[in-house]
């Protein structure tokens, strides 16, 4: 794919001399109120290598990369790029220094075309002229696109593209700016297994040209697959830098968490699968931009964990909202224990025993400025033991909160603390504590472990298993295939609003599931 005339920058010496440092961060410290996100972190990546930055959620990887791309300024420490000391006052300085970043949440303008997004904010080359030279830009973009195998139509508008394609645009942006150091933040979160494979090949290609690729991840098998070296962060500190050839998943996990941890294994549940708890009959739900769910049918039994796999944005959120009553389906029915739910009425769903843990914890599942006690009573405040007539029993609310905080081990200053002060893991515990204590028939959990550290992830998985063991039906919606394979009894795959496959988790084939997630299309054959 790369032709012989490509400029090679700072390649390893032919005599095997150690590679020159492309970027070096020394003693970087960054503090936020109440937490030291980076504590004297040292990080060094060489030209021509793929260097992974590994750590669990909250370890400080994103902060470190944000400092490197000029979004934050370090409180202490220095940054050297190709041996020269640099100071970034803004991301533009970092871009000029040759550092490009592909963020987890894309920074793309949806109504614009690919070409327009690529050239946005660029003050060299084609971006400099007053008139928008569309064709020249498109040609340039197409060139880079072919060279690196990042196939995307320069004239397509962003909203028309799939998430995987949007990510390619982000990478194109960096390549267009001739970034010599490319940072990718959790890039595979939005990809199918096959798309991830293609991405890794692209990254290797870029490294072979002499660029430096910094790959931020918390997934061990990916780090092993694509990186040359890996630096492990834990609790804001850099723990070790090892060569991936010499490390095992287990040793990396131990470094990452600081203790021996079992890699996500499947635990077989011997629960009796009982009656049907949830039945979706040819449900169609509309999203903000047209139909989101098309004629989906699904059943969940009591004691069963059914997972919906799929890349985010294929209708999962709308489906969950339809079951929880937040969105009314335009067609079809949602039945809980045989009775059809009144569409678009969250109260009816709650009364029927549907518990919903939304993926947007702080935005939908909780009222951020209210106290933990109030949040725990968010749905229960109508019940007789919490309110007497129109008046609230404030003491009963507080006592209940204290009890739940103890039972679920929520780390908080007290029941009166504001919800937004809690960490991600504890927020999720508050939501789970609330939903569980309502003794639901059905638990719908959407991306429940997103952004959580390993300890919190283990807790959440334990609660999900416990829910099924107690006879609840569980519908787990997740982008993390590993999590699904570890927890689920049955796996349904959603693609473009349809359920395109159902698999028994025990006999599951990751290849097959991955293909279904991409609608049957194998990106490796592009």
């Amino acid at each position, binding site marked *: 794919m790369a032709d012989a005339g490509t400029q090679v920058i700072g390649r390893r010496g032919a005599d095997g001399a150690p590679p020159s440092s492309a970027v070096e961060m020394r003693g970087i410290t960054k503090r936020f109120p109440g937490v030291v996100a980076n504590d004297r972190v040292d990080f060094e990546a060489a030209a021509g290598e793929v260097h992974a930055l590994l750590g669990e959620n909250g370890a400080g990887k994103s902060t470190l990369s944000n400092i490197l791309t000029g979004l934050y300024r370090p409180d202490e420490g220095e940054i050297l790029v190709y041996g020269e000391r640099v100071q970034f006052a803004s991301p533009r300085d970092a871009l000029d220094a040759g550092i490009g970043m592909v963020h987890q949440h894309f920074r793309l303008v949806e109504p614009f075309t690919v070409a327009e997004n690529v050239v946005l904010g660029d003050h060299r080359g084609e971006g400099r002229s007053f008139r928008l030279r569309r064709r020249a830009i498109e040609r340039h973009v197409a060139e880079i696109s072919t060279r690196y195998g990042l196939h995307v139509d320069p004239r397509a508008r962003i909203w028309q593209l799939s998430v995987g394609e949007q990510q390619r645009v982000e990478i194109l942006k960096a390549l267009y700016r001739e970034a010599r150091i490319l940072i990718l933040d959790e890039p595979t979160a939005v990809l199918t297994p096959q798309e991830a494979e293609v991405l890794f090949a692209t990254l290797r290609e870029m490294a072979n040209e002499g660029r430096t690729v910094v790959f931020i991840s918390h997934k061990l098998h990916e780090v092993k697959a694509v990186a040359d070296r890996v630096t492990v962060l834990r609790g804001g500190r850099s723990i070790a830098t090892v060569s991936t050839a010499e490390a095992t998943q287990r040793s990396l996990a131990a470094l990452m968490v600081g203790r021996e941890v079992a890699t996500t294994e499947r635990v077989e549940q011997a629960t009796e699968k009982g009656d049907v708890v949830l039945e979706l009959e040819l449900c169609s739900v509309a999203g903000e931009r047209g139909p989101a769910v098309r004629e989906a049918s699904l059943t969940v039994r009591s004691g069963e964990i059914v997972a919906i796999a799929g890349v985010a944005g294929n209708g999962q959120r709308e489906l969950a909202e339809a079951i*929880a009553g937040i969105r009314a389906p335009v067609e079809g029915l949602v039945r809980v224990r045989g009775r059809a739910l009144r569409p678009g009425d*969250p109260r009816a769903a709650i009364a029927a025993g549907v518990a919903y843990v*939304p993926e947007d914890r702080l935005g939908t599942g909780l*009222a*951020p400025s209210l106290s933990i006690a109030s949040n725990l009573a968010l749905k229960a405040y109508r019940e007789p033991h919490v309110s007497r007539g129109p008046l609230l029993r404030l003491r009963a609310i507080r006592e209940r909160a204290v009890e739940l905080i103890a039972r679920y081990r929520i780390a908080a200053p007290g029941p009166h603390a504001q919800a937004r002060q809690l960490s991600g893991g504890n927020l999720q515990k508050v939501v789970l504590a609330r939903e569980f204590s309502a003794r639901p028939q059905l638990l719908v959990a959407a991306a429940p472990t997103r952004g959580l550290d390993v300890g919190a992830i283990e807790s959440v998985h334990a609660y999900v298993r416990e829910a099924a063991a107690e006879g609840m039906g569980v519908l787990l919606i997740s982008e993390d295939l590993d999590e699904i394979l570890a927890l689920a009894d049955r796996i349904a795959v959603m693609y473009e609003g349809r359920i395109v496959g159902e698999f028994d988790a025990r006999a599951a084939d990751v290849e097959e599931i991955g293909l279904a997630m991409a609608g049957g299309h194998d990106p490796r054959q592009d």
Partner: protein
Amino acid sequence: MVVPAGSLVFAFFASGLVLLATGHDPLGSYRQIFDAAFVNTGALGQTIVSATPLAFTGLAAAAAFRMRLFNIGGEGQLYIGAITGAAAGLYFGGSGSSSAFAIAAMVVAGCAGGAAWALIPGVLRAFFKTNEIITSLMLNYVAGYLLTYLVFNTESYWRQTTGFNATVFPTGKPLPASAVWPEATVHVQGGIGLPLGAGIAVLAALVLWVLYRRTRFGFEVQVLGDSPRAARYAGMRTRRKILAVMAISGALAGLGGASQVGDFRHTLDADPNGMRKQYYGYAGIVVAALGRYNPLAVLLVAFLIGGLQNAGNTLQGADFPSGLVGVIQGLILFSALGGELLVRYRLRLVRRAETPAAAVEAA
């Protein structure tokens, strides 16, 4: 708590600068204001007169803003409450009913009028997601023109049609004696009057406080104000809440209008230099913001701002800058809202990094 106090300090400081610039002595002027507001004979009574309408409109704004419903229509709702209140007073006061009944009718009518007027933007917001700021604001003008129309342009029920003055200049019909709201006399500063409206305002503040802090209704308002998505997720009835809160807000402002008629003006005052020039509705928003939408704090702030108003009215003259009170009020609001910035963000002074010379040395 620190921020509103800090805003006041800053506002007085800034106004002091303005005074200095125009050749007045700031501390002396402030002393004069304080005396005129609270200390001089009869000052407290006058302050309460100024504070009462501010309390009503302040409570009205607080009730709505608490839920992030920006009801800017307090002014118009007050006018409509005055219109309906005056109608009830004229009718029941003249028809031989007891005084208590007539006054009660005025209270109810004032609430009803204000609530109905506020429900217009309320319905538009609840069912059509129309921005209530614009709709409520525009309705202020409509209410103002209605007021003018009733007294100046027609021979309406509210207009005085008999007597010599009626032929010279249009005025509102005077309220019958039995419909005039009573005053309680307190023996302070040589005897001051506590109007019924002031008492009702205190009662309303207490009720509002209990409603928002201790009831299910208040809980839902809290959640809705903080996160409409969480409220819907939890099964709360959003639209009903919007209508209810707008109605409460409008009722409070309307009550303020009825109080203006019953307590102080004893007629429907449509004079462009009378009730309308006071802009009670808009001042109420300042009061509510300073009181951080807490009903009890709103009462206190209304009292203080009322004092400021009173002082401004009393002191106006050749030797006292007449626009000063307005300037101070504006500065207070500006600082109060600007203070919000300090509450939400922390300012940090960062030293610029070391010079390149030092870097070369270190390399």
